[in-house]
């Protein structure tokens, strides 16, 4: 079935080129991200992006749209999302008007029926819009784990066949396969059916070198040594057992704050005073404060008693 869309022109030549082009728009990817984006293009499959909050899942879709010069169509998921918000809806009021306007004329029932169920009265919602678009689009289905498991079924047809079936109009097939990104914060297990249709990409916190690069790109005024220190401290904090580890965006915020405070080398006091930017739970802050100022030579975890 995919042969129907068989094109010789793929969007990317190699994973390396994905990486380079993403870098051009200030998105620093890694082997996994570039590889999966490349593969998604080649196989014509959606990507399910999962990972902790604030690691650039949504940004990935935006950046890919940017390098492709494509329009980003975004469907924000929430509990209670239904097909009239995700796929399409008939413009009921306009249909009513049409029927009333027709009352005095001599049109037959069939005429009116075919008329009011035509394109003119169709309100397209993000999914249908992405399918029908003539220009290149990138479809972002954000936080897909928020919809109920039953609602997921709405997405299946579009994800596997790139088409939408409307009973009154028939099946609308995509003119071109859009790149599709689904993001999930993993608050629940997604259905097997959905996962099967997607390529899976887990974006974790970046390693230190990559995070440093990100900080340098996003906060251009920062010095190399300060960026280095920032990312080292963040790595150290992420190793603690915390409720919520600092995300990349929080690292960036922190770097900006330190810069604004005119810090050029982070001391313990600086770090502890500004911890509330990195960490959002009081218990995490207390713990990190303790750890950062503690003497490492005495750091030994407590051993539980066995009876």
């Amino acid at each position, binding site marked *: 079935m995919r042969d129907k869309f068989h094109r010789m022109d793929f969007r990317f030549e190699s994973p390396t080129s994905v990486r380079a082009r993403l870098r051009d728009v200030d998105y620093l990817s890694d082997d996994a991200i570039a590889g999966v984006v490349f593969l998604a293009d080649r196989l014509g499959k959606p990507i399910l992006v999962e990972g902790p909050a604030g690691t650039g899942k949504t940004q990935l879709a935006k950046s890919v749209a940017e390098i492709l010069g494509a329009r980003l169509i975004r469907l924000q998921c929430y509990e209670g999302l239904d097909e009239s918000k995700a796929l399409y809806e008939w413009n009921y009021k306009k249909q009513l008007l049409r029927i009333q306007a027709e009352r005095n004329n001599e049109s037959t029932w069939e005429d009116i029926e075919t008329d009011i169920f035509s394109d003119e009265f169709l309100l397209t919602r993000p999914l249908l819009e992405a399918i029908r678009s003539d220009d290149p689009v990138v479809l972002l289905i954000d936080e897909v784990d928020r919809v109920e498991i039953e609602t997921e079924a709405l997405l299946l047809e579009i994800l596997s066949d790139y088409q939408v079936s409307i009973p009154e109009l028939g099946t609308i097939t995509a003119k071109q396969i859009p790149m599709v990104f689904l993001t999930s914060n993993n608050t629940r297990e997604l259905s097997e059916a959905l996962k099967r249709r*997607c390529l899976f990409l887990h974006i974790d916190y970046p390693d230190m070198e990559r995070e440093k690069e990100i900080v340098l790109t996003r906060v251009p005024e920062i010095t190399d040594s300060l960026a280095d220190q920032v990312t080292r401290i963040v790595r150290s904090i992420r190793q603690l057992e915390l409720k919520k580890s600092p995300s990349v965006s929080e690292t960036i915020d922190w770097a900006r704050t330190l810069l604004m405070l005119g810090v050029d080398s982070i001391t313990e006091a600086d770090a502890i005073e500004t911890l509330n930017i990195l960490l959002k739970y009081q218990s995490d802050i207390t713990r990190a404060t303790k750890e950062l*100022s503690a003497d490492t030579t005495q750091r030994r975890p407590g051993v539980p008693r066995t009876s």
Partner: protein
Amino acid sequence: MTATMSSDGSMLDLLTGFIVELRAAGLPVSLTENLDAMQAIIHIPIEDRNAFKYALAATLVKNNAHWRAFETVFEVYFSLRGPGYALGGSDEPLELDDDDTAANPEAAGAGTGGGGGEALTPEQMAEMLFKALQKGDEAMMKALARQAVTRYAGMEPGRPVGGTYYLYRTLRNLDLDNVLEQLMSQAREESPEPLTPLEERLEKDEFESRVDRLKQEIEAEIRRRLVADRGVEAMAKTLRKPLPEDVDFMHASREELMSLRKAIYPLTRKLAVRLARKRRHGRKGPLDFRNTVRHSLSYGGVPVDPKFRYPRPAKPEIFVVADISGSVAAFARFTLQLVYAISGQFSRVRSFVFIDGIDEVTKFFEGVEDISVAIHRVNTEADVVWVDGHSDYGHAFEVFWERYGREISPKTTVLILGDARNNYHSSQAWVVGEMRKKARHVYWLNPEPKAYWDTGDSIVGEYGVHCDGTYECRNLRQLEKFVEVLD
């Protein structure tokens, strides 16, 4: 592309074997995913090993918790493929002509003088290792890892082992803990001012991560040699490990316990969301009269569209009564952690722990944000030993009934955790029966496999008849499933 094409036949076989092994390791790989993987490798040549790995992972692994299992199998199946990963170079002398050693006269001198790695004394090797770690020189670390394995692992061809012993031997000879200390003291000396605790910590983290990378390199090298020696299938079978959600609480190794602790937090978040949703789902609150009348106005006063209040069903109260003796301690710990982490879903959680005496430990959890601290206190401070510190469910239940029995109300759900191995004391099962009369539900969670129930001194059947349900809870998967039915 052409390279992939020419090796297609063998590649397909390799991939098929790879997927069979993934399934054997417990990963749910469907037929569609299998086909996707085969399509994927057409587009990504195996020579680009990282990209190849991620391409396979993207099509085959749809759950991040399975990543480790995938990686292990991948390393075994594809460890001998791709440039730079072939085994050939392993016995060659260390390459000493790179820039780094030129700047490092002692090591370079030793190398060129001897003409090969074999000529290095252990001291020289240790020195090179030290330098490599200090500078974070990846290429050097890799070469040294190979050398160390050749020299210290003492690998014997044909032995059916997984390599843990070889790893242990290599690491023991390298004495990395000591190297770490030296690196730290070196860093302290080189710094113009004394290091602050923060700087000290950062330095240590950096060196630790380098040492970890070296360890991984050594492990990979041992694995490569074992695969070459024993063949792919045999090796994969030896290394097969249960997925985190299938790890048995009672027999978990230290490392497995760590991975369990990591797995439990995302699990609790998921459960909390699911429980909250389930409670609301399918139920409507009472009729909202005002809202209904307001909406009836647009229909000429006819209440076409009845409105209901947002449902706020009552939350249950939970009593956890846990055996914390020896073998079941890990299980009690995980269950308590889980229950407290989702305590927002219950109106109240009270916990009691026992061995042969019983003690309420609710206060340890109150106002504590970090559950593991509370659990540590439970383990060290609770007064649970009555006579000899051997489980006595009968006595513990009797005391429980006497002290706290009247506080059980029809809103209470009682969870009893334990293997019911009573050391042949009397069961006092009537207590459980009485509890059930007063409580909303009484459930028993047993971390033992069902086949062992009621064998030896286990009397779970005697208690079980008085409970609303007895559940086998050997791993996170089963625990998660149980919590979902809880209401």
